[in-house]
């Protein structure tokens, strides 16, 4: 039974890093494809397209940071109760799941933003802002996950 506490905590770390990372990978994948299209037409837009394409990458970072915090907390501990393990798992869910979905949707917004960059490059900052709006929810989830992890005794 003692083992289950640690197992659950590991599952928590996995869920956090896995889902958020998956969302970012998909988001960056989508936006990278669109960016490549824009650069085919005009290689001069590489710089701006990189900024846009990098935006959905942050969810993965948030997941990684929370996962790392969890790891650092349990690294020195030999035993965890099942309740504690479950707390780790639950604490990882907000950033894991919101990071996953918001990463994908942010990627889609960025793909549309690439259209702005291609056709009206002077307005491309607005595309960045639209993508940034999706990020809000990943950030909120990150904040909650952070406090939850911090609170586990």
């Amino acid at each position: 039974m003692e083992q289950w506490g640690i197992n659950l905590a590991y599952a928590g770390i996995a869920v956090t890093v896995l889902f958020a990372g998956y969302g970012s990978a998909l988001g960056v994948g989508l936006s990278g494809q669109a960016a490549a299209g824009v650069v085919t037409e005009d290689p001069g837009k590489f710089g701006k397209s990189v900024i846009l394409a990098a935006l959905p990458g942050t969810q993965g970072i948030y997941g990684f940071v929370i996962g790392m915090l969890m790891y650092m907390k349990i690294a020195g501990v030999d035993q965890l109760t099942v309740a504690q393990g479950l707390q780790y798992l639950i604490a990882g869910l907000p950033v894991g799941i919101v990071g996953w979905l918001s990463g994908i949707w942010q990627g889609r917004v960025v793909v549309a933003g690439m259209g702005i960059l291609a056709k009206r490059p002077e307005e491309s900052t607005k595309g960045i802002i639209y993508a940034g709006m999706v990020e809000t929810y990943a950030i909120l989830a990150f904040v909650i996950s952070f406090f939850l992890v911090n609170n586990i005794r």
Partner: protein
Amino acid sequence: MGISRMKKIQIGALQEDLPQLSKILQNLGVIEVTGFAESGPEQGAAFQTSADFSRQIAEMDRRLAEIARALSFFDQIAPVKPNIIEQFAGIKTYITSAEREQFLAKESRLTELMAELQRCETELSQIQAERSKVTALYETFSVWENLDLSWEALQGNSNIQMILASVSMLSAESEAVFKGLGIPYYLEIVSENQNGTQLLLSFEREHYPEIQQILGKINANVVHLPDYGSSVRAKLGELQKELARLDASENGVREKVYALKGERSLLRVFYDYYLSEKTRLESLEQFAYSHRCFMMTGWIQEEQLSQIETALKRNNIRYVMEEIQPEPDEEIPTILKNSKWATPFEYLIHSYSLPQYKEIDPTPIIAPFFFIFFGIAMGDAGYGLILALICAALLVKLKMGPMGRRISWMFLISGFGAVIFGLITGSVLSLENINFGLFNPLENPILLLIIALGLGVVQLFLGLFISAYATIREGRWMDALCNQGTLIFFLAMAILVMIKDAIGLSLYSNTLMYLFLIAAAIMVLANVRGKKGILGFIGGILGGFYNIYGTIGFFSDILSYSRLMALGLSGGVMGGIMNQLAWMLVEGIPIVGWLLGATVFLFGHCLNLALSLLGAYVHSSRLQYLEFFGKFFEGGGKPFTPLENKQKYTFVINEREA
């Protein structure tokens, strides 16, 4: 400060001075030319509203197209690699105005250069055409390489006829068909490959019809080779030599063009010159003309009026200038004008939307907030310093246009925001054994959250006050009091009620509660103002309650500022992880570990710096655009676009910078 005061002026002068006067105005670049209204009283019957410059404009277009073509030809043969700034700003040639004059004096060289490039381009396309002809011929002959008859022998004599044929596959059956014919013939397989078989057939001339029939049956095509002289092999060698010759001459032409690439600047300077000329001619179409005079009108910044007078007087141009009243519904162009420190932050406004002429310029207000927000979101003194140093280096090393300089200055200044906040929190490259600063965000994240939300409260209330001020400025005192005034009172009370315990006002909790209810009541009642009848009254009350419900949006805006804390924390944790990884390598592996550790440290922090920078910029500006501007800013102003010299490829800098 804020938005420059604009004046509308009208200038009249003699037609003989038209080219000179318009060029002077263009060089000054201070006046935005507008057209005359259809039935403007100032025109009078003597003026006709338009003149035809289309022929001259078309001439400019022709020259521009020629130069653009030459430039793209250059790019094809000698492409330019853009550096990191040019990735963003486009490649420009930076010249001083003296150099520009020197370039413009060489118009004859331009003609020569263009003719030369044209010649090279024609030559290249000729070589291309010839090459494809030779290649096609080579392909035709190459399958017949083993044919050892000369072309003359292939023509046969009066008795014997020889033909060449190619067939996709020669089966035993088709050979049987030949044999079954019962006439003497000779068949030789010249070559065989996956594309088909090449045959040489010889027979008596009289049997040609039968042979033809059989060839049709086995789907063979008769091939007529052009005259190749003594042998196909020799011909192939000749063709190869021909191809090599063509390659050499193509390289020769390319090298010639490549050697000319130093003169690309000449093309670019002239492109911009003709583009400016075209713009000037187009603006002339907006002037009004009489028999001997012309009249123009446009917008100018108040303090630049004297510049026009001095310039025109210096050039001895006789003119009349007067200030006129704009049309009542005319849109006045906006140009921002701020102090030295706030000017770099104008970039944030430009990439959102310019304020309308009557609005307040938010630049000086958002500048300090952006500075602080950026500092918290980046949150590391080391990163801030590196960013500031990079920007300083860019400013010193690279020549940039005004927008590039503004962006660099903005990040330079904001980098110091991160330095300050990093020092407050004792965070330098997230190193652990540094223990100074007022608090550690990782140990006390709640304090960081409170700071972030507190800044949000301050900025959002400021937004409401600005919106009230703008209403008052329009002379609508009562509106400001009833809308923004009651809202501010209500929100302030609501916040006090929420945080009364935390700030030690719990003793007054009842008083605060009453004040809050009174504020809510006032807000509902204020909404009734100006509504008529009993239905209007009820509608007003309901609307008032709806307004209270709408204040939830205000609180969600405040919560949005928590992103500052999240960005600061995630950057800090990420940096800490990089340090740990690096240290693990140093401790784990002897000697080589130091090298690996240093690599991980450098690479990791570079990555984290880039991500922090991206996040800090995007989210600090988003807080201005969505949360703050939402409270008072309308935007949609028409940017001031003076008649000036166009700079698509070149950028004229003053001698000092060069």
